[in-house]
């Protein structure tokens, strides 16, 4: 992922400075807009679970005054009031929280809400955290805006370093894994998703890494032909589908080789992705023996 340039107009923050920034900052967000943010930023509404978690991680958790209902990590986030959905957000509920910064998920469906917030004078940054690199990128982007880039930057650096080192030590002949998001019809997670990245970090290979999309519907026969060693389940605990004759054409389903990754670390990209990769790695090793 490319770094988006952060243009500082007024006095810039010294590299190790932790004091409050003075003057407006211009941030170029993922929608290509230049957003003027006036520090200090004390009340933030976060419209995606990944952003919510990231804010807590870089030490700005106490400034989060609004979140979406899916933003349940870390535990402290649950006390933050819910302002509704992240897609097509409820502008009124957001405004009621009196934010001085809103971080929305960058998507065309949110354009109207973002424009409405802009008209009300509330700076809104659109950001996408879809892959692991975006977590670091987000930390680096938000650090200066929140007045503490040193901490955020160091977190980002350590995270990326850990990822890089994990990548170089993976075994390229690891077990093949099917990332199953839905069963009726079968929806699998493709190569451009962060879950696919986590699988790689854990030493496995996503059997549908060739699909250059976050997810897609595929035919059962394709799954059967690619014969993954393990099926990673995300989502609900229902297993009734494993008894269906059509699904049992997949050897891993027949043999019951499942791994359940239920935590939120596997639901959206965060600094805890490494933990998730470790957990998955252990499961893969267990399967091996």
């Amino acid at each position, binding site marked *: 992922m490319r770094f988006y340039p952060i243009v500082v107009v007024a006095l810039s923050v010294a590299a190790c400075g932790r004091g409050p920034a003075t003057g407006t900052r211009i941030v170029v967000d993922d929608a290509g807009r230049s957003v003027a943010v006036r520090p200090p930023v004390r009340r933030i509404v976060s419209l995606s679970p990944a952003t919510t978690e990231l804010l807590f991680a870089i030490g700005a958790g106490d400034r989060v005054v609004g979140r979406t209902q*899916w933003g349940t990590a870390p535990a402290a986030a649950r006390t933050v009031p819910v302002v509704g959905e992240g897609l097509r957000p409820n502008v009124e509920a957001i405004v009621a929280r009196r934010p001085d910064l809103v971080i929305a998920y960058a998507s065309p469906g949110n354009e109207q809400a973002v424009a409405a917030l802009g008209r009300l004078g509330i700076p809104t940054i659109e950001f996408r955290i879809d892959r692991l690199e975006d977590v670091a990128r987000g930390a680096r982007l938000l650090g200066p805006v929140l007045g503490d880039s040193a901490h955020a930057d160091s977190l980002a650096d350590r995270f990326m370093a850990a990822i890089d080192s994990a990548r170089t030590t993976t075994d390229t002949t690891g077990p093949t894994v099917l990332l199953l998001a*839905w069963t009726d019809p079968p929806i699998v997670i493709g190569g451009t998703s962060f879950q696919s990245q986590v699988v790689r970090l854990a030493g496995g290979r996503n059997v549908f890494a060739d699909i250059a999309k976050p997810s897609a519907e595929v035919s059962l026969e394709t799954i059967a*032909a690619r014969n993954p060693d393990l099926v990673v389940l995300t989502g609900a605990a*229902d297993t009734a589908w494993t*008894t269906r*004759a059509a699904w049992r*054409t997949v050897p891993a389903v027949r043999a019951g080789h499942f791994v359940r990754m239920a935590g939120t670390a596997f639901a959206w990209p965060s600094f805890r992705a490494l933990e998730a990769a470790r957990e998955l790695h252990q499961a893969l090793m267990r399967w091996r023996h």
Partner: protein
Amino acid sequence: MRWIVLVAVAIATLLVAVALGPVHLGLGDVVRAIGGGGAPTTVSIVRDLRLPRALLAFLVGGSLAVTGAALQALVRNPLADPYLLGLSGGAGLGAVLALALHAAGAWAVPAWAAIGALLAIALVYRLAIVAGGVLDTRILLLAGVVVGAFAAALVAAVLALSPAREVRGALLWLLGSFEGTSWGAVIVFGAYAVVPLAVLYRASRPLDLLSLGEEPARFLGTNVETLKRVLYVAASLLTAAAVAVSGIIGFVGLVIPHAVRLVWGHTHRTLLPAAFLLGGILLAGADTVARVAFAPVSLPVGVVTAVVGVPVFAVLLRRWTT
């Protein structure tokens, strides 16, 4: 003769549906796998996945086409299709609720869809019975549209309150799919469909007469009230089963009867069997395309039938008006 061509195309379509798929298999391997020989994965794919799927798609397509033809005669409207009776809305609502509430069981979604469809059928039927116990087909149409719209609104509400993953899964289910078809489904649907299909076929002559209007049909020997009820119940039950087992697949019931009429005429005695075959061909073919067109990614089969169905319908409309 036309029948020979139709049957030949039907068999060919089924063969192609088994031979082609996102997983490339050689023709020799496919043939051997049907007999049980060859690599276990290949045998599995051919016998446990492709064969039942192709057969079910054929059966469902044929059933939808026959139902469409019968309904067009019943409501005396060439634009009628099996979903006009509101039951697709009921089925969709049942299925979406099953998904949103995480109903347990491998057959939960089809079962809930079937129940939703039956409730919609009963409601529409009740609305359409006017004074004197007469089934008014115009009110039947209106009631079907209204019930369908109401159900669709509820579906939208449920989806709006559901997490993104459930929404996507539900939408894909609604758009129709033969994924996960097992031999059990084929046998159950096949056995179940025989009765309504036979009932509809046996009503071929009365269907011809009903197209003239209720009064002329009555004076030509039709028990109009009984016939309307029987047709409605048979058509609804058959469509409900089709929707429960494969989602809402449009255009088959609407377009196939008209295409068949162009060649076979309006006599239902020949129209219905021809519609069954052509409907099966369309749906089995569409399912093959849905699997293969963007392999390994699958399209919902309803998308393919719409993309094929709309231009065909446009052509038919032109032939109709000239």
